[in-house]
């Protein structure tokens, strides 16, 4: 009853092209925005924001990036952690070597540098496909880890290879508190989501999907595979780079190559698969799932703390995590976003489905 579009007519082309054509969706979006901007900071404790919400938002950005590459363009990548690392290190070097650069610009430039790196990594994608490409992106992953672990230049010569990020200032305002960081990230999330949502329904987005569905066929109808694939790599690693920079500056507050290892790449891949490939909403759902799952498992584990040795407990956590992933893939291989779509279809007809 509540979710029914009866009577909402599209009377102009503009209305037909709207991102959210259904009025209830728009209301829900406004409600969510008000919730995250006003209500969350009022209600949530500092611990919840710093420990759960900030990583959740950052992972969402990273997941959007990977979803553009893997979900929309069909190029499997196991190197997303490398793009994030490049973003983080680029942001650190830009911010510390050119202190007069505005911090927002630093993040965007870091994303740009990651994008250039992404194009380099993606350049073999024209010849190498499928799992071969996935393993090839692993090369980037290991190379980046090695480079940042070996050359002290990247961290300004620090011997420990780990260094704190410089202070952030926007128009003379120092970003110090958790809440400041939260709003900064939120700004990036909102802008990034809007941009991505528009991008995937534009000409380039449709070209990506054509390449995903069958690249030879797409080429036949006049889509340039090189340009399309590389643009997907560029946009994807741009998001990855921004996410990495935010992760280093706003979450862990230090630049550390171990924070972007292969398991980070796999984690982001999990997010988009569980959330839903080829869905922007899915990125958020997947990120929520993957961020929340270890926390919930941890809470449950606390109940048993003392009775079961901690080493066994962490192994059981591993098993449950792996088991749940498999369970999810069996139950809903198209991800949480598909679940939401089915719910939506049902809601449209509810309570009279016939």
């Amino acid at each position: 009853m509540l979710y029914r579009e009866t009577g909402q007519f599209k009377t102009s082309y503009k209305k037909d092209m709207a991102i959210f054509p259904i009025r209830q969706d728009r209301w829900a979006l406004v409600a969510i925005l008000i919730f995250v901007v006003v209500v969350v900071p009022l209600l949530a404790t500092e611990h919840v924001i710093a420990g759960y919400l900030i990583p959740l938002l950052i992972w969402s950005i990273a997941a959007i990036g990977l979803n553009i590459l893997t979900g929309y363009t069909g190029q499997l990548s196991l190197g997303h952690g490398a793009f994030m690392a490049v973003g983080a290190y680029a942001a650190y070097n830009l911010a510390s070597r050119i202190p007069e650069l505005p911090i927002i610009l630093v993040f965007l430039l870091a994303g740009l540098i990651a994008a250039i790196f992404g194009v380099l990594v993606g350049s073999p994608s024209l010849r190498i496909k499928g799992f071969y490409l996935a393993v090839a992106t692993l090369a980037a992953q290991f190379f980046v880890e090695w480079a940042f672990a070996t050359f002290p230049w990247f961290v300004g010569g620090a011997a420990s290879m780990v260094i704190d990020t410089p202070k952030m200032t926007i128009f003379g305002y120092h970003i110090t508190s958790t809440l400041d960081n939260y709003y900064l990230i939120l700004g990036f999330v909102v802008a990034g989501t809007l941009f991505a949502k528009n991008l995937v329904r534009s000409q380039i987005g449709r070209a990506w999907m054509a390449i995903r569905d069958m690249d030879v066929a797409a080429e036949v109808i006049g889509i340039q595979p090189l340009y399309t694939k590389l643009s997907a790599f560029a946009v994807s690693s741009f998001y990855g780079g921004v996410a990495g920079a935010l992760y280093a500056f706003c979450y862990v507050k230090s630049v550390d190559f171990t924070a972007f290892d292969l398991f980070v790449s796999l984690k982001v891949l999990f997010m988009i698969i569980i959330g839903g490939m080829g869905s922007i909403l899915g990125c958020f759902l997947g990120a929520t799932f993957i961020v929340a799952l270890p926390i919930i498992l941890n809470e449950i584990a606390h109940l048993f703390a003392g009775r079961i040795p901690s080493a066994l407990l962490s192994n059981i956590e591993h098993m449950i995590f792996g088991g749940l992933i498999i369970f999810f893939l069996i139950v809903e291989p198209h991800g949480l976003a598909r679940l939401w779509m089915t719910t939506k279809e049902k809601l449209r007809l509810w309570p009279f489905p016939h």
Partner: protein
Amino acid sequence: MHVELAFFIEVLVAGLLSGVMYSLVALGFVLIFKASGVFNFAQGAMVLFAALTFVRILEMGVNFWLAVAIALAVMIVLAIIIERVMLRPLVAQPVIILFMATIGLNYFLEGLAQGIWDSQVHGLDIGIPDVPWMWLLESTNILISLFDVWSAVICGVLVLFLAFFFQKGRIGRALRAVADDNQAAMSVGIPLQLIWAIVWATAGMVALVAGMIWGQRLGVQFSISLIALKALPVLILGGFNSIAGAIIGGLIIGASEKVAEVYLGPIIGGGIESWVAYFIAMLFLIARPQGLFGEKIIERV
């Protein structure tokens, strides 16, 4: 013999032999990919699981061969469970879903292996001495470990056995039919589930052999599961669906990795072996996108 040349040969042969050990892990991947098109990320965890099971049974004081038999039985049961619980419901899903499921399996097996047994480092001695090959050292002044030679021999025997297994007999034919087109195979009455269970069990067996050999080399511990990452460049170099490719790929990767580490490493900073293999594999791939021995990818529109 000239000292520098002898040193080069030593590095080269050591590389070739360690390459054989990578091939051993890569073989497990190839078997499963060939028969079911699944890229099994959990192969490393299977190696860990097999090796831990074996070493713990051995530590209970069980006879060596009996321990091998028990570990083998465990791997077969594991394969049947994996087929029943994970693969059967995921039949006809896109390959990336199956790939992700094996990553989940990877987490699960790592937790299971260390949860049942433990996460200490276990020394393992499978009875092959890790000493220099004296005859070769005396005659040509080249230092090569006898252990490496033996593991190469074991690997060779295993490959011959697998090649025979895949070529001959009812099961071999069924395996190849399933590898070719599993729907067509099913329609002529080949029991797909049984074949998959057999393939996973075979991969489990290969994992056990790899686990035993690597276990003596590194000690049985968590890091043994990471050698799977070493096997991936071997895999893409050789081609995902070629047993011979896994061997040749392993030899090329092993040799070039060692040579690069010794001669190139000091120039651009050490530790390059984590990525140099991937780079070599990628260079090969650009020339031949399906790997050296992989089946040609034919695209129909």
